[in-house]
């Protein structure tokens, strides 16, 4: 236990050291702090994007989702792959427009496209609303990792508080450069850890990957495919579509996009990045192995399955390395999320209210405020990691219709329609989530094949309907507020 805790502390120490060291190498203006001064090359953009993708969700959430739901977890392989196909055309357009107008954040993009500061505030609020559950799941994962890898010596709730404080301190001390350097350590460690677990555990318990899946099929027929109505083919297709649309709507991925040196970086990444997804197969193997090797975990404990299986099979030294990798898998993306959330609030909510304020200072002061809210929610939320991820995606995807319409040669939407559509879509998601409702509950008259659609689809339909109606109603009274239609 002491060995595993010491190894995790060492990993954390290296991450903090790299963060502080990186800080001394860059000026701290808001633009540099937020997007690295657009001076990061292809390798670092690759690492940043990879650091964002391989998070607590990858490490614990996927194995937990497989433990509870089997083949439904394959949606993660699918949507990320399709998001890269979309990125080939989408990201160069966004990057070019941002570079041309000196934009820093996602909200800036909407403000410029729709010529509306009010829409910038709406986009910021929705972006923050989507990033909070994403931040919460990083902290929840961090709590699970520290509690399990310390063999219970550090309770999960204490680990969440310590993790939140560390994350806040890390972000306050540095910015994007620190995340990039720490991402190097994290990527190396996580590749070793997940690769080892994905190969060793199936071999130890079943003899081979083929024998693993044969044993799962014998014990739970069809579990390794889309096997239930609730999480069946229509759920899979609609969830992949919603998540693909939402992938680049994340404010922090927008900021990372702006940091590329040239637009061909995105086109090259669209070729290479899909192959990186095959690395997730290792986590899939661990999840399926846990179904049979550590049976009996309740739905609320499914996210523990990877670490429970590892603890039953491996010595504390290895568990310390696994915990260290998991720790960084929460810290690196968590830092990026906290960084972006604070910069967004300072730049797009506070600045319009007090134009003369030192926005860089306000952004750094916002970090502990957002950190405290996140710790509170992580301690009081019982949702599974992938459930939080699905909620976060459904929220940020509501930005997609207005963004995609703004890229058309002549934007048919105005700022009133765009804002009303976004608010209607996110309002619908919030209402359905708080009340635990599904498409089957609110639209039971639909054909059976549509009853299990992702609720994000329903919200997108409402979003587009409201966008069209409000645009029509307001454009009769006044000209559309979007003088720029071209990308």
């Amino acid at each position, binding site marked *: 236990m002491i060995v595993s805790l010491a190894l995790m502390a060492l990993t954390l120490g290296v991450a903090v050291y790299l963060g502080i060291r990186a800080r001394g190498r860059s000026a701290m203006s808001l633009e540099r702090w937020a997007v690295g001064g657009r001076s990061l090359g292809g390798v670092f953009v690759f690492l940043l994007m990879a650091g964002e993708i391989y998070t607590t969700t990858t490490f614990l959430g996927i194995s937990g989702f497989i433990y509870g739901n089997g083949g439904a977890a394959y949606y993660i*392989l699918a949507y990320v*792959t399709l998001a890269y196909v979309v990125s080939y055309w989408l990201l160069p357009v966004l990057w070019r427009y941002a570079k041309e107008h000196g934009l820093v954040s996602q909200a800036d993009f909407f403000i410029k496209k729709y010529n509306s500061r009010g829409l910038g505030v709406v986009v910021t609020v929705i972006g923050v609303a989507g990033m909070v559950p994403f931040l919460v799941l990083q902290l929840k994962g961090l709590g699970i990792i520290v509690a399990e890898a310390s063999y219970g010596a550090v309770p999960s709730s204490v680990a969440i508080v310590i993790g939140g404080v560390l994350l806040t301190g890390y972000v306050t001390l540095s910015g994007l450069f620190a995340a990039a350097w720490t991402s190097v350590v994290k990527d190396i460690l996580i590749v070793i850890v997940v690769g080892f677990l994905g190969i060793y555990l199936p071999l130890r318990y079943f003899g081979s990957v083929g024998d693993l899946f044969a044993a799962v099929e014998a014990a739970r027929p069809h579990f390794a495919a889309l096997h239930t109505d609730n999480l069946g083919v229509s759920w899979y297709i609609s969830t992949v579509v919603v998540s693909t649309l939402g992938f680049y709507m994340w404010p922090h991925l927008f900021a990372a996009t702006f940091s590329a040196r040239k637009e061909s970086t995105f086109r090259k990444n669209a070729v290479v990045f899909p192959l990186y997804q095959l690395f997730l197969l290792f986590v899939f193997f661990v999840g399926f192995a846990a179904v049979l090797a550590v049976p009996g975990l309740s739905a609320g404990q499914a996210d523990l399955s990877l670490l429970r299986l590892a603890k039953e099979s491996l010595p504390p030294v290895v568990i310390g390395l696994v915990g260290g990798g998991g720790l960084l898998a929460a810290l690196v993306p968590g830092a990026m999320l906290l960084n972006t959330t604070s910069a967004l609030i300072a730049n797009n909510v506070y600045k319009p209210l007090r134009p003369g304020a030192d926005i860089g200072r306000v952004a750094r002061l916002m970090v502990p405020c957002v950190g405290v809210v996140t710790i509170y929610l992580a301690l009081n939320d019982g949702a599974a990691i992938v459930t939080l991820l699905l909620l976060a995606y459904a929220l940020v995807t509501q930005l997609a219709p207005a963004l995609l319409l703004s890229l058309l040669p002549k934007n048919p939407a105005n700022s009133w329609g765009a804002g009303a559509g976004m608010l209607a879509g996110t309002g619908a998601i919030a209402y359905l989530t708080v009340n635990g409702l599904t498409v089957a509950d609110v639209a039971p008259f639909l054909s059976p094949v549509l009853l299990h659609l992702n609720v994000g689809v329903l919200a997108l339909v409402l979003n587009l309907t409201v966008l069209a109606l409000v645009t029509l109603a307001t454009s009769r009274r006044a000209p559309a507020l979007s003088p720029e239609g071209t990308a």
Partner: protein
Amino acid sequence: MWLRFVLAAVPFALILGAIPWVNPYVLGLPFLLFWLSLSIVVTSACMAAVYRLDPANREEAEQ
């Protein structure tokens, strides 16, 4: 131009369109997981072809 969009549509057809029909073990993997893994490799190949056909990349390389 149209060929690039046809190539980009292939991953969507494999990953979304074909799912009702692909939901035997291949390389030890359940068929659906094998299909999605194969689709990822095909996606990368399609995007590599799109990249080579895209005049924007040739212009940038010449610059």
